[in-house]
């Protein structure tokens, strides 16, 4: 490499690692690593998935807390928080996974803009930097496209833009090219070379699973099982192992027991004859989804027993083509034939001839190995008596006998992959479709896997259709197709493709085809100088910014991003905007304590003026509605059972006569007791009306004598003279809703980042905890304030709850209160890690104490013991007092001032807790 050659590799050390160890629970991820990583060059960590590359990189980046040992980065201990804060503007970290630290709903520009903001850059500066970076990466035309809709290669370029926006001295890239097509991969590395040319002295630390990429790095660290196998330049490693390529060198470096049984993989040539049967045939297949053409005019023929490779980037139409071949998707145009028969999507018989193994090794993690095999055998309708024999055979052939009762998740990747293949083969299909079957598997296991494939093809004459990113796998196929943007670029044997383009390697040939298809040379090469280079002044400015404990720019970067994300998530936005309104509507109408229009009917066996007078007394009240008279007991029983009548009254024969003569008489009433609360109310009403009727009659009969000892009990229902439920409920429910939903949304906003992985941006940038929390909280305070207005308007205009107090007092208190409730969310978020737990946990944590102890039902003054303590601490208690006071009691600041104080105290207390509990590193 020309760039490397000009550089002095012995200039110094960018990171010094001493005896570093790391464990996740019982798993030992890193074990006694000691390394000195040279500065100013490109250093590669190589090895398959799960050997500890990512763990080591995140430790160096300061994203993960140290457990054991010591790492010095850029001249200071990375475990020291002060050193991390000061050096973070000099380090950039791009984590593993396509677009893992990007925000899929944000556009390319918005993503880069956010990262610029995290380093406190001003709007002008950000704009200039982003324009330059997008130009040099060729992303300029896509500035408005959401990051989630970019191809894998473009996502990684955007990730690089975001990492480079602050001119780092140390660039850490964790598997930046995994899952990216070869052209994008090449462009990516060209981009890195160009940047290194411009920023001489920048150190780059990269991990990769592609050995052919590693060949271009300056210095390599080969890792396995949490340990370093070897270090040195690629040439040194090849020389030491006496091998010709790094793949072989890596295998040679592995400890003896891992290498056992591994031999150089060779696949015998396929016997071809003239009478070849065509197994798979695609004839001008086209698939459109709306305006988008996913697959365009694809044709190929695959003879029986061939291993046919399908190469292309993520999203180029490979999976769609596979779906059309299996009949999962009906083609928009063209036909697919299997064994000469047109594929009919509804023909289940076709599917029985196909075995399919998807990218994700889609096994049921909750079923054991045996259960997985048996389930698939049954679903393919194998005869019941043949199943156990077949499962035993498959276990033996794929070497799974020892793990038959284990759960797949507990098995190493290599075994899971064999199991996946066994599952796909359990019904002896004639065609096997494999979608990137070996990603992430170590080279030894991968060779073993291809041996099985070769065996199936050559011995059992199974046609194998396999998609892959690995060029060395593509070289093993009998023929390959290169696919890009829905089109097949070429189909031939690997050797012919290389020969035809007169290229040296298959990768180079593929890249040339891709470039031809896109109609341009690599865009990275044409761009001019990308950045205004004033390194010294810039670095000083950046460091000054990093020293600041609070920077509005960094805080607003989070605020802006949170707002944009919320706008683009329909479900969360709905909940935030009208969630509380929906719930208030439901509670206001659903939990109504007014009991009206109760149905009742009378069985009047007397039928005199007096008995009818008694009935009228009840029928005339607004609480009861009279239904058709009851004819007999059977009628009464039926009508009460089906819930038609809440109250039945029986007046006995001779009632009128007895009352007139002052003799003992008896009225019977039956109440539907199914709903006890309602029944209690009915009982109260009936007793009251009975008493009123009696005293009326008594007065008629005895005159004023009855008045002796008479008194009045005057009940004044204050603040709500008509005793309407809504007036009582609404002012008490508002504080509960303004507690639950804003705090839940705040918790979610932080826990989401933890779960999706973008929290890493907080770990590795100079953003302080206070900036992070406040920045995320602001949009939710604004939303909650909006909710206050909505809820108040709804209460006044729809529920017609009179507002008697001062809007100013209520509004101020409400604003203060939502600051408190969102801060409660910040505190809760520090100990919750999954979104689903955040939703239900927050509902539980906020709702239960608020409903029981805040004075919503029982006044805090009547609570005892523990409940009284909670009731006096809860901010909701005080806001309920203010809400009731303002709505119903016509109180002003003079009367409610005392309730403001606890709310004012709660804000700094909760904030302090949130900042103290939030961690600035993963643990």
């Amino acid at each position, binding site marked *: 490499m020309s760039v490397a050659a000009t550089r002095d590799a012995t200039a110094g050390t960018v990171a010094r690692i001493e005896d570093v160890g790391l464990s996740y629970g019982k798993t030992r991820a890193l074990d006694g690593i000691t390394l000195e990583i040279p500065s100013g060059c490109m250093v590669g960590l190589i090895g398959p998935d799960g050997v500890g590359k990512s763990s080591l990189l995140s430790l160096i980046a300061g994203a993960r807390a140290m457990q054991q040992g010591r790492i010095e980065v850029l001249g200071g201990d990375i475990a020291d928080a002060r050193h991390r804060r000061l050096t973070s503007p000099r380090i950039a970290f791009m984590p593993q996974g396509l677009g893992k630290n990007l925000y899929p709903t944000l556009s390319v520009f918005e993503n880069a803009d956010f990262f610029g903001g995290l380093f406190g850059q001003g709007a002008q500066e950000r704009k200039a930097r982003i324009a330059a970076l997008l130009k040099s990466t060729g992303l300029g035309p896509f500035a408005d496209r959401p990051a989630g809709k970019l191809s894998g290669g473009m996502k990684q370029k955007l990730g690089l833009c975001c990492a480079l926006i602050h001119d780092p001295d140390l660039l850490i890239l964790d598997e930046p090219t995994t899952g990216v097509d070869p052209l994008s991969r090449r462009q990516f590395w060209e981009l890195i070379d160009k940047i290194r040319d411009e920023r001489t002295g920048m150190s780059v630390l990269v991990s990769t699973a592609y050995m052919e990429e590693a060949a271009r790095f300056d210095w390599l660290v080969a890792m396995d099982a949490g340990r370093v196998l070897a270090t040195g330049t690629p040439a040194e490693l090849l020389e030491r192992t006496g091998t010709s390529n790094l793949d072989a060198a890596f295998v040679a470096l592995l400890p003896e027991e891992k290498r056992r049984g591994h031999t150089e993989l060779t696949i015998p040539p396929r016997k071809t004859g003239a009478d070849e049967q065509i197994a798979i045939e695609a004839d001008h297949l086209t698939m459109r989804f709306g305006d988008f053409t996913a697959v365009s005019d694809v044709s190929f023929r695959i003879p029986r027993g061939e291993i046919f490779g399908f190469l292309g980037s993520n999203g180029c139409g490979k999976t769609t083509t596979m779906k059309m071949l299996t009949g999962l998707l009906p083609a928009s145009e063209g036909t697919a034939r299997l064994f000469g028969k047109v594929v009919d999507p509804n023909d289940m018989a076709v599917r029985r001839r196909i075995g399919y193994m998807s990218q994700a090794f889609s096994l049921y993690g*909750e079923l054991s190995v045996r259960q997985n095999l048996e389930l698939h055998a049954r*679903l393919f309708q194998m005869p019941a008596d043949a199943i156990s024999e077949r499962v035993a055979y498959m276990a033996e052939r794929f070497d799974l006998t020892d793990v038959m009762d284990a759960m797949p998740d507990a098995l190493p990747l290599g075994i899971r992959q064999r199991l996946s293949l066994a599952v796909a083969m359990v019904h002896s299909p004639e065609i096997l479709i494999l979608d990137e079957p070996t990603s992430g598997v170590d080279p030894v296991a991968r060779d073993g896997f291809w041996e099985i494939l070769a065996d199936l093809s050559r011995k059992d004459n199974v046609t194998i259709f396999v998609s892959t990113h690995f060029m060395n796998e593509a070289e093993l196929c009998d023929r390959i197709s290169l696919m890009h943007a829905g089109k097949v670029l070429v189909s031939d044997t690997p050797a012919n493709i290389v020969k035809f383009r007169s290229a040296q390697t298959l990768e180079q040939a593929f890249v040339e085809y891709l470039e031809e298809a896109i109609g341009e040379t690599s865009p990275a090469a044409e761009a001019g100088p990308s950045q205004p280079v004033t390194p010294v002044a810039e670095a000083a400015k950046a460091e000054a910014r990093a020293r600041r404990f609070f920077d509005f720019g960094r805080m607003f970067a989070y605020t802006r991003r949170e707002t944009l994300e919320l706008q683009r998530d329909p479900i969360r936005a709905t909940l935030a905007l009208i969630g509380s309104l929906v719930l208030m509507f439901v509670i206001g109408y659903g939990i109504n304590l007014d009991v009206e229009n109760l149905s009742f009917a009378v069985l009047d066996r007397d039928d005199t003026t007096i008995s009818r007078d008694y009935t009228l007394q009840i029928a005339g009240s607004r609480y009861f509605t009279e239904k058709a008279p009851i004819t007999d007991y059977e009628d009464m029983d039926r009508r009460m059972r089906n819930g038609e009548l809440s109250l039945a009254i029986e007046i006995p024969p001779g009632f009128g006569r007895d009352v007139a003569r002052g003799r003992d008489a008896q009225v019977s009433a*039956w109440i539907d007791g199914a709903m006890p609360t309602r029944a209690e*109310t009915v009982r109260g009403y009936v007793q009251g009306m009975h008493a009123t009727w009696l005293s009326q009659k008594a007065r008629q009969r005895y005159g004023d004598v*009855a008045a*002796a000892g008479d008194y009045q*009990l005057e009940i004044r229902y204050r603040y709500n003279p008509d005793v309407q439920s809504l007036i009582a409920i609404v002012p008490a429910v508002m504080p509960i809703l303004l507690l639950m939903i804003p705090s839940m949304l705040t918790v979610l906003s932080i826990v989401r980042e933890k779960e999706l992985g973008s929290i890493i941006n907080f770990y590795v940038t100079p953003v302080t905890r206070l900036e992070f929390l406040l920045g995320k909280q602001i949009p939710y305070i604004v939303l909650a304030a909006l909710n206050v207005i909505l809820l108040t308007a709804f209460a006044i205009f729809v529920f017609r709850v009179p507002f008697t107090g001062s809007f100013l007092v209520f509004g101020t208190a409400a604003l203060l209160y939502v600051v408190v409730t969102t801060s409660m969310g910040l505190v809760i978020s520090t100990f919750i890690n999954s979104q689903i737990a955040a939703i239900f946990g927050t509902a539980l944590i906020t709702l239960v104490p608020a409903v029981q102890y805040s004075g919503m039902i029982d006044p805090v003054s*009547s609570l005892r013991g523990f409940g009284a303590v909670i009731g006096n601490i809860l901010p909701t208690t005080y806001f309920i007092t203010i809400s009731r006071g303002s709505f119903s009691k016509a109180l002003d600041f003079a009367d409610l001032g005392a309730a403001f104080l606890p709310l004012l105290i709660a804000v700094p207390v909760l904030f302090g807790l949130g900042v103290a509990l939030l961690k600035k590193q993963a643990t």
Partner: protein
Amino acid sequence: MRLANVFQLGVKELRGLMRDPVLLILILYSFSLSIYSASNATPDTLNHAAIAIVDEDESPISSRIITAFYPPYFSVPKLITQAEMDSRMDAGLDTFALDIPPNFQRDLLAGKSPTIQLNVDATRMSQAFSGGGYVQSIVSGEIDEYINRYRGETSLPVDLVLRARFNPQLDKGWFMPISNVITAITMLAIVLTGAALIREREHGTIEHLLVMPVTPTEIMVSKIWSMGAVVLVASALSLVIVVQGILSVPIEGSLALFLAGTALQLFATTCMGIFLATVAGSMPQFGLLLMLVLLPLQVLSGALTPRESMPEFIQTLMLAAPNTHFVILAQAILFRGAGLSVVWPQFLALTAIGAVFFYVSLRRFRQFLR
């Protein structure tokens, strides 16, 4: 649709559920502890209700009234002056304030019909509403007893014999557990099926299923029957063991008829679970949707408060929800012992709603799989 496939896939769902401790605990909790505690923890409407008394009479009868209020229904009355009364109520310290005027006893015995004033803080929800009646009857009782020694019989001897049918003691401990069973059935049906679908999607196994000789209908029906069966069995066990056994709540009607109705309800709500899962796509979004869907469904269905006290348009709107019909039939069968001759309209309605939900969610499910 092949029944063998539906059966196999359903068994797979059951095995998956067996290995999900969180969902198992949720099922167990909803059908045992939650129901048990609902019966015991339902608070009395009056619990240490705060009462203050302004005694301007200081007579034997006023002290009689003061001593008539005691815990646990009421707190020990605070004796206050009239001036304090307003500010204490404004601050929300007292729910009730009773004002006994000067010379109350003298006027009472003289037949001058004096007035006692009871101030109620009517912003205090249920306590104010039902408590007012209690205070009234306590005061009346004390005065009547006192006065009866002074005067002869002047009232009419007409008795009102009140009986509560189906729950003679109006024991809330009977109502709440069954309401909770109804609530748990709906919630779990939606959560379990929704989670089963989202789990497959998140693990990428749904695509895998599709290349096998199984149809979307088979996949959906397998989830419906397996999760429905779990909830059905759990609710039957809960009714027999927890409700009838431990809590000894009598169940009037036929358990078999109720379970038949439950099966129909499960048909509708499991389809709803599938539908919501296809809309949400991920577990957190599903959780948020649940908040917006589950609560209205349950609160407005009549399970907690009577339907007839809700506004007309809500009553009509809620006829489209399966819960409304299920609550009606469950209350009729379990509390009032109704038979099929009484509840057949609800069975019919549930079948119709279930069929519509099934059709809609199957269409949605097919699109989701694309």
